């Protein structure tokens, strides 16, 4: 009984701030009419049907593709970084981990704005190219800029979980593998990588989820007409005032993320059994 009492405040918190809003979004997604007059709302599936048009599906596809590319780049950059960190001596390691975390203390919006001043037509990079007498480049408002923004902002979320898992691997396990005849490559292939899979899985999840739903990065670095699913939702709620369609898109995105997570989870469990190689 005591347990129940202790968990009560959290339960209330969850109900007010998670369950209730979710139900609200679900409710709006299956209705149409005037949001101001709840009694006049009618049940409908039109919001979902509407999303099945090619231009919306394209937005969804592009969001998923960009998030996927960013996640892969984060993994390729982040894994070696995490390894270097994990193998460092205590003092340097703490300092470097701090360096990874410090940018996260700064406002997310501010960090993304900073990239605009770097990449813009009159930005630092183009000024420098001008100074060297080279032609200027269109760096802003394209897929590349958006991916750069995502990788820059979400890389720590890839590095830190992998780093945590790697630094927990018992050194004597690695020594045992060397002792049994494995060189460095084999040690990585057969011991370090398989044991780090849980970190990789949580890194992928933690990068992919915010990347697929972002609207700030895509708006600032992708420009006004650049549309990702996050922008679409934002637009429906704040510009078009179609809460019903916005809610429907949110639900679709949530289902997508849930499927992706379930898939990763299954992947993770399979790997822990150690039967990948």
């Amino acid at each position, binding site marked *: 009984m005591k347990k129940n009492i202790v968990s009560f405040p959290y339960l209330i918190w969850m109900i007010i701030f998670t369950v209730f809003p979710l139900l609200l979004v679900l409710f709006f997604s299956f209705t149409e009419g005037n949001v101001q007059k709840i009694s006049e709302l009618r049940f409908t599936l039109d919001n979902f049907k509407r999303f099945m048009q090619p231009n919306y599906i394209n937005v969804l596809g592009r969001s998923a593709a960009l998030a996927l590319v960013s996640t892969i780049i984060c993994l390729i950059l982040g894994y070696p970084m995490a390894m270097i960190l994990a193998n460092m001596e205590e003092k340097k390691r703490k300092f470097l981990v701090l360096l990874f975390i410090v940018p996260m203390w700064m406002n997310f919006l501010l960090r993304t704005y900073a990239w605009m001043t770097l990449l813009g037509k009159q930005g630092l990079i183009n000024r420098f190219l001008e100074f060297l007498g080279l032609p200027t480049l269109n760096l802003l408002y394209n897929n590349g800029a958006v991916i750069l923004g995502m990788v820059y902002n979400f890389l720590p979320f890839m590095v830190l979980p992998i780093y945590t898992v790697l630094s927990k691997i018992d050194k004597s396990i690695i020594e045992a593998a*060397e*002792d049994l005849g494995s060189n460095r490559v*084999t040690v990585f292939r057969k011991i370090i990588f398989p044991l780090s899979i849980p970190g990789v899985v949580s890194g992928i999840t933690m990068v992919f989820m915010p990347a697929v739903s972002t609207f700030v990065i895509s708006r600032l670095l992708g420009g006004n007409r650049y549309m990702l699913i996050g922008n679409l939702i934002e637009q429906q709620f704040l510009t078009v005032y179609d809460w019903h369609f916005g809610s429907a898109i949110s639900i679709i995105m949530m289902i997508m993320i849930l499927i992706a997570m379930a898939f990763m989870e299954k992947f993770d469990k399979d*790997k822990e059994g150690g039967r990948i190689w």
Partner: protein
Amino acid sequence: MENNIIIDLKNISKQYDGVDVLKDINLYIRKNEFLTLLGPSGCGKTTTLRIIGGFEQPSTGDIIFEGKRINDVPPYKRQINTVFQKYALFPHMNVFENIAFGLKIKKVPKHEIKERVQRILKLVNLSGYENRDVESLSGGQQQRIAIARALVNEPKVLLLDEPLGALDLKLRKDMQIELKDMQKRVGITFIYVTHDQEEALTMSDTIIVMDKGRIQQIGTPEDIYNEPKNAFVADFIGESNIIEGTMVRDLLVEFADTRFVCVDKGFGENTPVDIVIRPEDIKVVPEEEGMLTGIVTSVTFKGVHYEMLVQEKDREWMIHSTVMEPVGSHIGMVFEPESIHVMKKVGER
């Protein structure tokens, strides 16, 4: 006898951040012997083992393996396998995969791997455990898997770093006998690290006692126990009474304000020495017959014998005896000349 030596350590020293961990270690290991590095924690025994395994580089000195210097040979190219302190089994593999790991890397044919794993599992009494998850096994079973994983590669030398440290007393005793038995059967050189003197005495052909990065004594268990070279060894191996004394001349020693005939010589005249007398070598006699006399201050029952502390002037003596004298009784103590072990003072090198 020269070609019987498999490993030879020559003038090995090791410093960590300017601190000496090993100082001028010289030792050789014979084929098929069970050699134990014994000492308190921090004495350098594990470092010595890790240098032999290739996980540490000596600061100076050479490691000779079958006549060849192997200082620069990485661990995975040495014909040596290790059983680690905490077993270090691969948590993401089952028992079979763990044991087969080394053989797979050596590209041994599949059917031969299967056969060898089965044979080694039988040796460690775990037949039928192939598909078990290593983390579901008990400490003793994990220990055997770790030994099997090393032995299956048929190394020339097996290093064991306090492998029984995490097991309970009963299991330890069983495993000690099993290990010794296994070593005889497979005919592989075992180098064993422990801080447990009883374990060392039970299992070893040769014991190397280490302290503060130096070898204190090398010898058979009997030598080490009966003829400890200095007070440290005497104290570490079993219980001892260590008394300061003076070697008056050959065969005559003075301690506890009394002169005693002894069997040691060659210390010079009037040299300060340490005297070691084992508690079981002191006989309790009526007060008037004793060479020394005292009052019993405490009695502890130890199973086979009683451990008594006896206050004699300002010294306390420990006596092991099967006959109990009650606390407060006045007793006499006698010992044979052979029981008086005279040693050079430690710390004066």
